[in-house]
């Protein structure tokens, strides 16, 4: 059963990219064999809705677990609907984080991170 990891590069020596929606690659890894396939994150270059694109890709790849840093409410909603569990990882090398995952050291993300803050109107008062 493969899991997905948001990463800065294409292999296990890359680092976990803390930004889910804007990460460079999504690594699809078999934690037993450490076989690894890198998919370019379709969310990386879009103007808005990066997390949505990335989450849709994760669901479409059929994985059920994801390791990343932060995940906003939009992506969280899609992942939850697609039955994907999210684990939070420190920004370490993917190889190291996989060890932590195997040892059950990663905590599960059960609430979405705050969405990106927008401008606030001042209002006539």
């Amino acid at each position: 059963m493969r899991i997905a990891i948001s990463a800065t590069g294409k292999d296990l020596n890359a680092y976990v990219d803390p930004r889910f929606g804007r990460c460079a690659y999504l690594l699809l890894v078999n934690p037993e064999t450490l076989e690894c396939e890198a998919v370019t994150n379709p969310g990386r270059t879009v103007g808005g809705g990066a997390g949505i694109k990335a989450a849709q890709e994760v669901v479409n790849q059929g994985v059920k677990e994801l390791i990343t840093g932060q995940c906003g409410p939009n992506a969280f909603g899609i992942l939850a609907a697609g039955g994907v569990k999210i684990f939070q990882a420190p920004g370490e090398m993917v190889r190291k984080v996989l060890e932590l995952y195997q040892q059950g050291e990663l905590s599960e993300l059960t609430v979405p991170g705050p969405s990106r803050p927008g401008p606030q109107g001042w209002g006539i008062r």
Partner: protein
Amino acid sequence: MRQLVITSGKGGTGKTTVTAGFLALAWRAVSADADVDAPNLHLLLHPKVLEEKGFKGAKTVVKDPELCTECGKCEEHCRFQAIQNLTPDPFRCEGCGVCAYVCPVGALKLEEVETGRSIVSRTKYGPFSHARLYIGAEASGKLVTEVRKNAEKLGESEKLIIIDGAPGIGCPVIASLSGTDLTLIVAEPSVSGLHDLERVLGVARHFGVDALVCINKYDLCPEMTGEIAHYCLRENIDLIGKIPFDPAVLDVMEQERSVESLLQTEAGKVIEKVWDNVISRLFPDGRETL
């Protein structure tokens, strides 16, 4: 590699002047100008351009007049009044693609267009990544990300990247703050200055970026300086310096003298103290690392 970003809620607080002062003090750091809408740092650094590239940051509709049958369906369906007299208006086009979809003869197409240029330069103080957004273009957040990426490439073997941040609290400032280690917020002692400080601090906290504050031209309104100092105390944010208003700084700028001569002014001396504070926060193990 550590990343420092100088921000301010609003424009015109002296962010770029402080950034330039820091670059002269650091002597060798990578610099980046993330204020792509109104970039100014290059005016102080006198960069020598090494590489310049077009940046495709948005999609807009392009018409092939040969194919057009003037049926007017595009104009009827566009919700943004971006097609008038059968001609697309790039300033108004949001790039939704509806016109291209309804066009029965395929005369309209959504195409990626250049919205600015990204530039890599060399300066006396080290490599410099900057950009220019075209007039009337959108999506400057993406161009900021490009500038940051170029700076990170330039800075692979360097200890520090100093970024002149975008003003405001919208998409560009988020793109300039996220993933940095520390932000120095340059505040202005005014009602709107305090308001903007609160908002930019909110963005920094949201992204887990450590923040320090300094007040520029503090003596122009001692009352508001006092209020900002109080605010920092309440919010448990270090206020690490108060830079006086100094006409000598304006003289240096007008005569386009070097950044070093900026540091000779009264204001420059305070900028140096602020820098010492910033460095000890960025490199707690000692500054010999720089």
